[in-house]
């Protein structure tokens, strides 16, 4: 029963993903492709956040740090050398390594303690990275940032789109497999009740730190892709706003659902795009951001568990009702 159900959802995902894979071949509007690319990138980023928040119950207020590490590693290395695939790869690896090390240290330092210490430490570290990027002006250009060339290959809109989408697909299935593996289950148990996990014989530190590292690495990959799509970097990649974006996307989509963050990223980017266009439609929409804020509020009211979470819940509720009503019928007959 279970594996069957799993197969079906994988099928659906594959179907949806392959639809998106085909998009650039018959639809060539760069604005939309760029928007979609951003959705994929932030989808990856939000997904990495969900791994922390949704699956392990760790809150981070500085997730932007990993995003920024990926972004700066690649852009600095490319900028100082040549815009070739080799340096791109090198930059990516450097980003991954730094993100991994930083998340490892942050995890080791605070994950023994109550969860909000991790949140505070990452907030502080992200702040310090921002200061570093600001101060190390010779390399980073400070707050103004700098533009850079990227390998020819990625200058093609379709290539970039496909690269981001393929990264998303690969990472999504990897992360999903992780959450559905025995290890992933332990991680979820940690979210529920840390102390009890220890007393059934799993050492929680390992798992928490591992999730912190995986999540940091995935986030840094999102940062790399972001740079490829923007060809520009500035200190805003370390800003709290970026973390909040991930947080919002994750929550709107549904915490702990993994697809939720992807849908959340899509929803927020699309809503943002079209709502902001409203401004030129009529002056009444000049303050379109209000509508955007209202979207969040309504989302909580109508989808308290996030979109995917609430749908899953309603689904479960319906099948439970069916079951219990059929049971009642059994009793009656």
């Amino acid at each position, binding site marked *: 029963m279970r594996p069957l159900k799993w197969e079906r959802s994988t099928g659906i995902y594959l179907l949806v993903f392959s639809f998106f894979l085909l998009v650039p071949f018959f639809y060539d509007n760069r604005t939309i492709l760029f928007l979609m690319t951003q959705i994929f990138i932030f989808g990856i980023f939000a997904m990495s956040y969900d791994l922390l928040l949704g699956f392990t119950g760790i809150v981070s207020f500085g997730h932007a740090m990993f995003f920024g590490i990926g972004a700066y590693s690649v852009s600095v290395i490319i900028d100082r050398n040549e815009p070739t695939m080799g340096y791109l790869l090198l930059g990516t690896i450097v980003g991954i390594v730094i993100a991994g090390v930083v998340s490892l240290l942050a995890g080791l*330092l605070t994950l023994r303690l109550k969860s909000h*210490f991790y949140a*505070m*430490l990452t907030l*502080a570290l992200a702040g310090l990275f921002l200061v570093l990027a600001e101060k190390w002006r010779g390399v980073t250009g400070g707050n103004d940032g700098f533009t850079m060339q990227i390998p020819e290959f990625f200058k093609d809109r379709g290539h970039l789109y496909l690269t981001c989408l393929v990264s998303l697909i690969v990472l999504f299935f990897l992360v999903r497999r992780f959450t559905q593996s025995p290890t992933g289950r332990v991680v979820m148990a940690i979210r529920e009740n840390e102390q009890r996990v220890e007393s059934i014989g799993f050492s929680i530190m390992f798992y928490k730190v591992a999730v912190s590292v995986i999540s940091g690495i995935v986030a840094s990959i999102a940062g790399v892709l972001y740079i490829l799509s923007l060809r520009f970097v500035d200190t805003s990649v370390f800003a709290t706003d970026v973390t909040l974006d991930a947080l919002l996307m994750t929550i709107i989509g549904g915490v702990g659902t993994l697809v939720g963050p992807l849908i959340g990223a899509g929803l927020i980017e699309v809503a943002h795009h079209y709502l902001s266009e409203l401004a030129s439609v009529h002056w009444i929409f000049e303050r379109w951001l*209000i509508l955007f804020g209202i979207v969040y*509020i309504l989302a909580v009211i109508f989808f*308290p568990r996030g979109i995917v979470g609430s749908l899953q819940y309603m689904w479960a509720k319906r099948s439970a009702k069916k079951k219990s009503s059929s049971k009642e019928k059994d009793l009656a007959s």
Partner: protein
Amino acid sequence: MDLLLSLTVNGLATGMLIFLLAAGLTLIFGLMDVLNFAHGGLFAWGAYSGVWVYDLTGNFFVAIIGAIVTGLLLGLLTEYLIIRPVYGNHVQQILITLGFMIVLSEMLKVVFGPDQKAAQPPAFMDGSFMVGDVILIKYRLFIILVGALVYAITFYILRKTKIGLIVRAGVMDKEMVQSLGINIRLVFMLVFMVGSALAALGGVLLAPYSGVIYAEMGMEFAILAFIVVVIGGMGSFTGSLFAAILVGLAQSFMAYYYSDLSLAVNMLLMVSVLVFRPQGLFTGKG
């Protein structure tokens, strides 16, 4: 010596100001455990409405009362519409309060316009005087005074009444508190309103201090307030006071002695508190 004194006084004043900003959050986030990202919005509304009333009446104390009333009303609205459905659920709180924050700060622009606005202290508090070589800015002394007063009153209320206990109990187990005959909704609403009023008070007091108010001020200071509440030890009023003063002094001294690091001072402070005293400066109550 004069220098130290002057740095200390100014640091203290900044600290007190930060405390005023954080005081409301100590109630709402520390005590009631609501992650209220709209706090900055309440704060900015306090500043704008206060300055507006001041421009209208020319009386600073009326302006303060105006801000407090705004805070109370907005607090009522916020609690009822935004917070009530999401007590106890941090994840939902983040989303809904961030949404509301956007609405609040955009509404601010609708009502008061998008430009920054000047704010001056009333004439009798404007300027400074010198004691020896130490410059004492009048308005800062006033801030220190108000800060101390707010601390004393709130501390007294939390100590001497059951309100603090009830709120803490309500956060731990809402159902049980209700089963004991306490209308916890009402209590939460009142405390939230007071927290909002404190935010608004912080806002209106900040205005003449920095001389200017702008719609984005809310988010900027909310993060600082949040940091203070956490390093103070969640929900501890005394802790917030000390943390705020620590931040104020650190900023002041860092700016003088290691100004290259002043960008990082808050974060460094937070890291050191996390490393050396992870539970916060003070724990729990009071």
